[in-house]
């Protein structure tokens, strides 16, 4: 069950270098061959590229506060995902400074699934000057009854 005490919990800050090789690898995986992803210098990230924060979080203890939400594995799922770029999308060669936070927890009643508990985690990415460059917003949902599985991520 969702631990309401996780509201406001912040992960440890972590760095994320935007790199040419990973951009091309990711673009290929999502079937994009747009030349902007393959520029020799300053390759542009695909829209969902910041999900590769997985690799950068893994380098730092407690960078990802999601585990503290304690969402039930069977009844929880990834409902929505959002990316906002403040200014142009990140490009290869940038070093971003990121931090994640459990930003919102709320409930909703549903006839089919009982009480739905929503949790929003926001990761902010800043440049070396502290300017906000991007946000990743993950929304998970836990049902009070075992649901049909919709998403396993």
């Amino acid at each position, binding site marked *: 069950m969702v631990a309401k005490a996780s509201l406001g919990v912040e992960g440890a800050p972590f760095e994320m270098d935007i790199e040419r090789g990973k951009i091309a690898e990711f673009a290929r995986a999502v079937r994009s061959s747009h030349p902007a992803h393959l520029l020799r210098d300053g390759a542009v990230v*695909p829209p*969902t590229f910041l*999900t590769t924060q997985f690799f950068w979080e893994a380098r730092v203890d407690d960078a990802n506060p999601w585990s503290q939400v304690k969402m039930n594995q069977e009844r929880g799922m990834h409902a929505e995902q959002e990316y906002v770029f403040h200014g142009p999308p990140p490009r290869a060669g940038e070093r971003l400074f990121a931090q994640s936070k459990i930003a919102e927890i709320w409930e909703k009643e549903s006839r089919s699934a009982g009480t739905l508990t929503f949790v929003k985690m926001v990761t902010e990415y800043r440049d070396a000057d502290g300017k906000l460059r991007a946000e990743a917003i993950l929304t998970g949902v836990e049902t009070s009854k075992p649901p049909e599985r919709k998403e396993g991520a």
Partner: protein
Amino acid sequence: MSFDKAIAGQEPGPLVIGPFTRTDIVRYQGASGDMNPVHHDEVFAKKSGFPAPLGVGMFTAGCMTTWATDWLGPEHVQRTRIRFKKPVFPGVTVSFAGKVIARDESARTVEVELWGTDDAGDAVVQGWMTFDFSAGA
């Protein structure tokens, strides 16, 4: 030029991808760093009640946004919102498409709605993207 294309509302045809293979899923997992075994461990996936390894929602979503960036350019992306609807298993083919739902000529931004539809006709993923052409091009 891209803004004019978007303004004109001449959406390209769908991007059809599939049948998805287990390798497609693993390639995405490697690229993204999501190592959840339900997406590649056949034994684990079956124990979890699935008939086969489950596709990755973010993978399907990434293919959907490829439809939009192939058309309007990844350098103009400002906002991307994704809603997961139905899992995609190996063997399934998905058709990705979208349409312009709003244009702001003074701000030079365009909003696009996107979707992916599997071969059973069900929506598997839905999305909304904003493209910003204010910096020109």
